């Protein structure tokens, strides 16, 4: 409870700083709105030329996209700043974070909070709901459970990726762009059915970074699609435990890295 209160007051302070340039801020909110809109446009443009993609219709793909971007928006709200952690490390500001009696994870979460991201989140949930209605996913307890598990597991995985990216920057400073291949690359992959990718990519996004387990496998279950994956896949039931296991590994990596962190000062 104490931690939550601290988080809220940090967010409040941070928001005050953000909104001090009002005109620029309004434009920024619009820009984020446009960004999501254009991403969705991209999917519509693809389906302007074809009826189905690997047997999936427009709205089924939009369901996949809805799951992905809802989970990713939440992950960004609490973990996006891990990507910029190297800036804090370089300038020595990270030491400031460490001296405070609050976990750096909470502080990064507060720094990551941006109101315009809440806008993206609402848009994502809108797309997801619309896709569910259009594809006639009748809301049964089982279906609802699958969708929730899917979103939560994927959120956990994206958060873990942000965390790993932050931990990586303790060692290499600004080389954590490599994680963009898995975070933003992960969005690219999980917004389309996983079966369209080559075998090694499927294996990568199931065994190494289990985004496929969280998004694609539950979707197969929901739409009763034949699984055309060329790799052996775990059961849908394991999505959440696997995601939490992945988070556990990255947390261990984070703690290991932070123990070896030796400030910038001399």
């Amino acid at each position: 409870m104490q931690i939550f209160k601290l988080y809220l007051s940090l967010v409040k302070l941070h928001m005050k700083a953000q909104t001090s340039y009002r005109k620029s801020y309004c434009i920024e909110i619009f820009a984020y709105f446009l960004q999501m809109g254009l991403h969705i446009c991209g999917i519509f443009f693809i389906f302007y030329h074809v009826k189905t993609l690997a047997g999936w219709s427009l709205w089924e793909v939009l369901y996949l996209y809805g799951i992905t971007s809802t989970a990713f928006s939440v992950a960004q709200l609490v973990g996006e700043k891990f990507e910029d952690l190297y800036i804090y490390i370089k300038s020595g500001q990270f030491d400031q974070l460490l001296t405070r009696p609050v976990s750096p994870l909470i502080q990064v979460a507060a720094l990551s909070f941006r109101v315009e991201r809440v806008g993206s989140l609402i848009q994502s949930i809108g797309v997801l709901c619309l896709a569910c209605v259009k594809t006639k996913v009748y809301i049964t307890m089982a279906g609802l459970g699958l969708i929730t598990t899917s979103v939560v597991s994927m959120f956990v995985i994206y958060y873990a990726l942000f965390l790993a990216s932050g931990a990586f920057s303790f060692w290499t400073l600004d080389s954590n762009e490599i994680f963009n291949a898995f975070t933003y690359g992960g969005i690219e992959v999980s917004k389309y059915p996983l079966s369209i990718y080559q075998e090694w990519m499927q294996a990568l996004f199931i065994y190494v970074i289990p985004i496929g387990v969280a998004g694609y496998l539950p979707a197969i279950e929901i739409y009763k699609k034949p699984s055309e994956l060329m790799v052996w896949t775990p059961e849908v039931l394991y999505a959440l435990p696997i995601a939490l296991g992945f988070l556990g590994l990255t947390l261990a990596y984070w703690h290991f890295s932070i123990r070896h962190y030796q400030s910038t000062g001399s």
Partner: protein
Amino acid sequence: MSRALKQESLIFMRENFKTYVAFSKVEFLRYLGFRLSNIAGLFTNIFFLMFRAAAFKALFVNAALIGGYPLEYILSYTVLSQVLLMVIPQWGSVGVAEDIRTGQIASDLLKPVNYYFMILSKRIGVCLFYLLMRGLPVLIVGTLLGLFRCQPDFFHVTVGIISVFLSIVIANSLHFLVEAAAFWLESHQGPKRLLSVSLYFFSGAFIPVALFPPWAKEVSSLLPFQYTLNTTVNILLGSSESLQLLGLQVMWFLIMIFLCLICLNRGIKKVTLHGG
């Protein structure tokens, strides 16, 4: 007023050509220092290339032509768009907003060079770095993976290289204009985000403009964004309208330089108003 301004700038440009080349060179060398960072970025570029290529291949499973283009064309386009992604900047800072915020611009303006051309020549150095260290390796990997299947002729490569240069100037000038908004808004974050989003989508870096539905193509042709990456890639892939495309780019090139010089001229007055 603007004509006098332009003439003055041209004289500046001629007299200080060597200085500008030195700016480019120093930036190029500075970026050479971040080797590991570039390798990380290269890795990401190649991953994205493979993801995109796989998605487009799935699109062509039941069709030989989509939007009038064969798979080979779209794949080659995807390779070249990843090659040029960092060369023709879609996002990132050109340094203007930072200069305004920190006050660095005051000392830069004292230098006997035009601030806009100084920023531009620095950026050209950076873009050349990305062309050699990021673009070329992506092109080689794309070719080795069998994704790049285009053998451009001498004419299109020559026009293409001119076009790369024009694109670099147009894209960087767009960033310059938007960051110069900091003269008036005190923060450039909003406008900058808006530019990156539009540039990334309408330049064809996300989906080739060739695959846009007709109405979206029309919208796109009215905006400056597609005359960067999309036009250059089309020329390099041997478009039959290469010269017309280049003509349009030259038009936007001149418009951008003109706008940037005017904006700088107005902005400088604003800075003086801020004082100290």
